[in-house]
């Protein structure tokens, strides 16, 4: 069960997935708050965020992980991830341009399954990493 998008035999170590680039807006954070139920005011209430000493609202870590997840599933096909892990390295801020980088780090077969490992990052226009992680997908 999973979208057939990428074929194991067509993938080589070092291949990179198409990059997703997105300029983070406050509306993105409001939409994610509503869709996820995370109503921490630091992510949507500019007045509360400034009162807490932040320069502005900042992004939900799980919005960043979700956005990078979209880049992953666009590449390997929906339903094919077997593992997805990230470390939250830095906060994200409105007007930052976030870019995904997904690189195939290994190909292997395990219990008859064809797997690829991926190293993944989400970074801003200055090359600062926001998320750093790993994923594994099963491919046809």
């Amino acid at each position: 069960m999973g979208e057939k998008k990428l074929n194991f035999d067509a993938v080589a170590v070092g291949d990179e997935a198409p990059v997703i680039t997105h300029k983070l807006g406050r509306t993105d954070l409001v939409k994610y708050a509503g869709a996820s139920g995370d109503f921490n005011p630091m992510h949507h209430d500019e007045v509360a965020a400034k009162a807490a000493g932040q320069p502005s609202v900042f992004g939900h870590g799980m919005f960043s992980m979700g956005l990078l997840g979209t880049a992953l599933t666009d590449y390997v096909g929906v339903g094919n991830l077997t593992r997805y892990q990230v470390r939250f390295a830095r906060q994200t801020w409105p007007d930052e341009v976030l870019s995904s980088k997904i690189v195939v780090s290994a190909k292997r077969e395990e219990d008859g399954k064809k797997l690829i490992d991926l190293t993944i990052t989400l970074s801003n226009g200055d090359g600062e990493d926001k998320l750093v992680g790993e994923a594994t997908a099963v491919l046809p």
Partner: protein
Amino acid sequence: MADGAESQADVLKGIIGQPTGKAKVVIERGPVQHFADALLSTSPIYHDPGAAKAAGFDAIPAPPTYSFAFEFAGKFTEMQPADAPKGNPLMTAMGPLIAGGGLILHGEQEFIYHRPVLVGDVLVSEGKITDAYQKESKGKTMTFVVSETNWSDEKTGDPVVTARFNLIHRSA
């Protein structure tokens, strides 16, 4: 001061292995679609049952991070297990630290997928604390608590998704 540090270490050691909760959730089409939209997905698979079928799914699947949010959308009160543990050991450890100031950070997140989460699923969870420790870093005390939640299919008992959540408190 040394006594305080020791008792905090004991608190952390004491919560390892403790249950964090049990829950039951229903996966519904509307919230899945809104979640996929919020993550800027343009895939028709999250919107159209026909597209999901054509891609090999029995029903519309959810995006990979949905299990972090689906209790908000589908944890209905009357369905919750009566034997769910009361209280949360995460708060036993973090509550007093938060009261003393500092910052709570989501350090890491990991999902292990056994099969896709699908619209129509009824999933049940069991969670526990798997690790808790403190480290000094740049003059701050960093407290780490890791929990693991296993979601399985209520009907078959088969595992669906395992979530590992790593929460950090950084002292003021």
